[in-house]
């Protein structure tokens, strides 16, 4: 299918960006998103005592845990490109609301690095938005099954809590869920990139 995409992209369309180039750009953006979320968790931990982390809810309670994703390499490599794209887009869409909640909460976060955290979250939001736009274009070239998005609502509400410990715990929990989901998105896109990179095998 990707070969077909290549051919349709290169022949007959004058100014179309080839798919593997789009995927390359998309995977770079998802890479940046995951790096940002990793930095965020590290920054939170730098001032947050470890005991708090133990008390936080398990990642199985992330609002995106309902989405079935591959759990090892073999499973992942068996997923079709369209499904991989659909998974990536679903995860991305699922974080639009929580990121907004995080963004507003970061401003009043009882944490010494809250301004740095707040700016990183805003950056995340920007990357997320532009990545979603790029994946919309890509999925348009990949067929209808790639465009299906699973709906994963965020039910955590806009308020993270009342007291400092609760707020920080919830913040940490959301960030850990975000870190994982951004890694999933990044991994799926990079698998897709290598599948599409028949013209540039040296990158994979």
């Amino acid at each position: 299918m990707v070969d077909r995409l290549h051919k349709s992209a290169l022949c007959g369309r004058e100014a179309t960006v080839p798919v593997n180039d789009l995927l390359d750009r998309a995977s770079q953006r998802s890479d940046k998103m995951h790096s940002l979320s990793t930095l965020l968790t590290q920054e939170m931990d730098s001032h947050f005592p470890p005991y708090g982390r133990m008390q936080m809810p398990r990642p199985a309670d992330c609002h995106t845990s309902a989405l079935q994703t591959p759990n090892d390499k073999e499973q992942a490599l068996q997923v079709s490109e369209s499904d991989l794209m659909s998974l990536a887009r679903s995860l991305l869409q699922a974080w639009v609301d929580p990121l907004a909640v995080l963004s507003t909460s970061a401003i009043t976060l009882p944490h010494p690095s809250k301004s740095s955290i707040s700016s990183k979250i805003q950056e995340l939001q920007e990357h997320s938005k532009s990545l979603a736009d790029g994946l919309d274009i890509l999925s348009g070239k990949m067929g209808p099954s790639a465009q299906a998005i699973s709906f994963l609502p965020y039910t955590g509400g806009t308020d993270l809590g009342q007291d400092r410990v609760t707020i920080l715990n919830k913040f940490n929990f959301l960030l850990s869920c975000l870190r994982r989901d951004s890694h999933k998105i990044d991994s799926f896109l990079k698998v897709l990139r290598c599948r599409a990179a028949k013209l540039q095998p040296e990158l994979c």
Partner: protein
Amino acid sequence: MKKVGEVVLLWLLILFIHNAAGEGYSPPGKPTNISCRSPEKETFTCWWKPGSDGGLPTTYALYYRKEGSQRVFECPDYKTAGKNSCFFSKNVTFVWVNYNITVVATNSRGRAFSDPVDIDVVYIVKPNPPEEVVVNVTEDKDWPFLQVSWKPPKMADTRSGWITLFYEVRLKLENKNKWEVVSAGQRKTLQIYSLRSGGTYEVQVRCKPDHGFWSEWSPSSRVKVPEYFPQERSMWILIVVFAAFILIIFIRMVYMNFHSVKRYLLPPVPGPKIKGIDKQFLKSGKSEDIFSSLVVSDFPPTTSNYEDFLVQYLEVYVPEERELIMNEGKDLQDDSFKTENSTCDNDSGRGSCDSHTLLTDKGGGDKEDGQQSDQEGSQAEADTKSQEEALEEELLACSHENLQSSNVSNEKEKVKSWPSLFSPLPQYSFSPVNRPNPPKTGKQHCLSDSLFTPNSMPSYFTQPGPSTTKGFRSNYWECSFDHKQSHPLHPQSAAHEHLQAQNDLNTAHVDYMGAPLDVHVLNVRPSEYVEVQRVSVEDGVLLHPVSPSQEDSRTLSHQTEDYSRVRVVNNDNGLLLLQRDAIEEEKSMCPYQEDVVSRASITPTLQNSATGINIALPILDEMAASGYIDTAIMFGLPTH
């Protein structure tokens, strides 16, 4: 008997063993430092650090739970990864799943649990080093370079995109210690240039996943670079020949134009011109004639004459004359210092120039005398180079009768009274400005930084009434030396200091003599250069600022003359005048000059012209040393 003995022995032995076994045994210590790594995101290994074993054989067991499940599993493989480790194979490894891992140490005395650790396999990826590192030396037109290539570690599946690796290469010369690190991105080859001929290099490669840890460096690959020296040598020979050629041309050019270069770098100093002495006359030379010409009726001026003169100066107050003169001075200034009455030639020092104009004033003759004496004195000190210029010290004496208050707050009033006292000054300042050649002016004055700041000046000057302001702006500036500081100088502002100094001077004079001192300090702001117009007998120097009108201070300052800036006014009779070669050089020069003043320690005496001379001498010497002596700073007349 024997049996009993054996039994006892045996029993003792058992007791002993039992005791030995019982003492010092304890439950095992807690295992610590659980760390896990995955080389390819498909398997992972955990290591732990055992605690004390309590003297008993201790076994370790690793238990884990996966997130979302309470089921506990034990490590499937304790052997593959070595001692105190647990290897998780592909079957039991899942990504994006949190493992909660605990290690338990058990011995016959008890067990110890380690702290649990949460890990997710995707965050602990540390690949193996790259493999098959090949380094070739490629000969390319006698400029060899290294071609390094490698393969990703076997286990890492980069083909499918499951793992994305970035590479780094480092190399060093075999006998050196410093590695040079080159990043190679996701590529698997690299070229390295700029090699040392004949050197042996060690090359290593390592890799890192997009979100993970760097691998270890691969084993060193050694390679020897062949010699390509001859090429370099011929290039060096070419460069040397070319440089020598250029050098020869340059030397020849300098030699041909030696004189003009010398003239440019070291502008000639105009010869001295002394009123009444003609150079040609000297050369023609009958000695009697020469000596007779040297004897001037009013030289050297006697003290009494000088005092009369000063007193005369102090008492004379001719407002209308002053106005005229001031206006004239102002006109001069406006005309960019073109003086109609200037009769100076390029070689004259200011003093001789101005002496003509001085004569027109009532006190002018005396001033001229004073000047001449200054000139003489300064000549005595100045180097031959400086003779021509030096003596533009025009000393203006001012009286501070009115300014007796030592109150700083009165400075404004004092300012107002000054213009009236200094009216004749303007014309002095402008006439020499006429001169074209900067090096030929003999005046060097430094503007005391401590006394004046440009900013403070204007405000200072605005105090007087409008009519007198113009007079002020004729840039008269006097430095007063107060060797007998009754009040410490305040560091408030330059103007204040200045005034203070003046005040002090005034009061000191009043105290001492009851007669006003000749010296007062005029603040002249915009120009920072002054010429010494007169050296007062009471260690005062009347300096008038040399620079052109305030508006054009910049352009005019490029003018011709070198004027000194008063660098600092010492309490001890020191007025440090700095030679000015150029605006830019002032600063550099001034500190140097400052040293001069500080070194010239002068014992304060109230009226000792010799003291003034003492001050002047070291300064002169220094200034002579610097190549130009434009002003001899005479702080007093020679003994009268």
